[in-house]
């Protein structure tokens, strides 16, 4: 099987495991979740009660297999049920409002942090023992700070004290109406700068340290020494010989660390009251809004799996060995 097909099969299995976990968790947990919800939200209609029972598997909603079939059918049609905290809004509509915010902010910031961190890692690995190594403990400190805590500190310093950045929200809700015009886009960019800086600052150190270590190991390889012995310029040796090879483990690490980075960024959204999936998740947790929590789990998992698949495609693009193996089959 070609490399990419094999990877797609693997992600399909992972997606199925996530779906199945999502199905069984509410059924395996103790207590009656539906009664808890009904007690908390007295204005829910009886139809919502039935829908919740079917979704969480309480009462007599039929055999487990037929429940599972219905559940898969709903997920395929992006039908995640009705939200209980914002009744009668559907969960899908809530997600559709928040996903673009998170996707743009977290996606852009993560890619910037990865690119910048990798570049700095290449330089630090090449100048091993130089200026960059003196900053290593500082970088490790940055890496160890929880995202949301750095967000709190930056918010206090740059927004509350110095008024450089706006305090919270995704855009200035008092003066600007959402839409495709510059007033709104400018306001949205203005409000996303500080969250983006937070993500870049906290995640850049991890990429940089990892790339530096791989780079140092790669620079000791014979082919690098040979390239230098041929009299190639340093730039060529570093970028086309060493860095290109060191990038492969880095990319694989990117795929695996993505879930962690995205989760951290979601918790950070809470600090900025950013109107993304993270804030929605917090609201779901505080109001024990189970349908919403389950849908968010699925959305985040699928986004991470898709990003992983994209990374695999990039690896095929970068690594001639994978392509050669394909051609030899």
């Amino acid at each position, binding site marked *: 099987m070609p490399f990419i097909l094999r990877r797609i099969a*693997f*992600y399909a*299995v*992972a997606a199925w*495991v*996530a779906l199945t*976990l*999502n199905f069984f968790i509410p059924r395996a*947990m*103790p*207590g009656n*979740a539906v009664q808890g919800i009904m007690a908390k939200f007295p204005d829910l209609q009886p139809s919502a009660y039935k829908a919740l029972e079917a979704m969480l598997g309480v009462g007599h909603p039929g055999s487990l297999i037929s429940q599972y079939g219905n559940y898969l059918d709903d997920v395929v049609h992006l039908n995640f049920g009705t939200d209980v905290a914002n009744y009668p809004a559907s969960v899908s509509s809530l997600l559709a409002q928040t996903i673009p915010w998170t996707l743009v902010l977290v996606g852009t910031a993560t890619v910037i942090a990865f690119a910048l961190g990798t570049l700095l890692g290449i330089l630090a690995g090449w100048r*091993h*023992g*130089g200026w960059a*190594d003196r900053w*290593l*403990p500082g970088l*490790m*400190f940055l*890496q*160890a*700070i*929880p995202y*949301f*805590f750095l967000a*709190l*500190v930056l*918010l*206090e310093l740059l927004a*509350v004290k110095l008024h450089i950045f706006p305090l919270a929200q995704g855009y200035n809700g008092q003066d600007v109406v959402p839409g495709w015009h510059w007033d709104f886009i400018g306001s949205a960019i203005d409000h996303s700068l500080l969250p983006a800086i937070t993500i870049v600052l906290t995640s850049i150190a991890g990429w940089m*340290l990892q790339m530096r*270590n791989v780079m*140092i*190991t790669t*620079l*000791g390889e014979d082919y690098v020494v040979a390239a230098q012995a041929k009299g190639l310029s340093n730039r060529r040796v570093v970028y086309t010989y060493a860095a290109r090879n060191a990038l492969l483990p880095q990319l694989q690490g990117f*795929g*695996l660390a*993505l*879930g*962690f980075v*995205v*989760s*951290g960024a*979601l*918790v950070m959204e*809470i*600090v900025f009251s950013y109107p993304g999936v993270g804030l929605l*998740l*917090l609201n779901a*947790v505080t109001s024990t809004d189970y349908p919403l*929590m*389950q849908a968010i*789990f699925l959305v*985040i*998992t699928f986004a*991470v*799996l898709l990003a*992983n698949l994209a990374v695999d495609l990039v690896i095929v693009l970068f690594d001639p060995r994978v392509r050669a193996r394909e051609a030899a089959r």
Partner: protein
Amino acid sequence: MSDLANYWRRLPNKARIGAIMLGLFILAAIIGPQVTPYDPSYQNPSQALSLATPSGAHLLGTTQSGQDVFSQLLVGIRLTLELAVIVGVIATVVSVLVGVTSAFLGGVWDEVLSLFTNVFLVIPSLPLLILLLGYLPQKGQLATIVVLSGLGWPWGARVIRAQTLMIRNRDFVAASREAGEKSWRIILFDIIPNEVSLIAASFVNTVLYAISASVALAFIGLADLNSWSLGTMLYWAQSQQALQLGAWWWFLPPGIAVALIGTALVLLNTGIDEFGNPRLRDARTATKIAGRRIQPTDPTPVLADLSARPSRLAAFAHSFSRSSLLDETPAGGEIR
């Protein structure tokens, strides 16, 4: 005892600093709760003690309801470290079990266990943790430990599996097998001892994961909010608007404590890495040979090359020594 001292001397500087920092936090965790000046939950009704700035009586000031932040911090470090270490031990044991079994049995078992490991590696753990803890009626310390260890093992299992695959094909394992040793004896006495540094690194990583995940979960409110951990401290600081009230002494200490513990663990881990891979070592670990700094990555210097360029002081001292007489010897070694 001298063995221990010897080991300590061979550790890279980074690991030493990390171990000392971590030691201080562990000390705080052990004796902290006994020496807290106040009950961390005691709400002092006095108006003057609401949001008091740090002073002699309250080293890190007070919260809005007059609770002593320093006492909360000491108790919080204990609870957070306790949780992280327990999760670290459980998850590491599971990862060793899965990793070694997978590599040692091979075949279908390996395929299934590897697939299982990799699937749980790509599914983002924090949303899953939130879902699991969200459904639990009691969100106490025990629930968090169970859920975190249940999701914390795949990374270690993957690394340990790769290492076991390598060691399994070494000659000494083949020799043990020829000698008729049982599988469990080979695993316990031949394979595991060769993976100690890897298991240690995986343990440190898991502790790091447990700290950051538990703090994030508590910050969202998925923890026992009546107990004091570094995460719940941050939760209360955020939900009672410490930031807007300008009470930096309330939300800075727990966050800095988390970051410092994390830094100590990362330093320790980098140290362990460098212990195994000399290339990664700091340039300052270069050894001095005949007055020249030789980096671990440099090729072994030729002796003639070294002696050709002695430092000035060494040359001066050398001129007094008896062997300096030989320097002027003409070819053939014949003394005039």
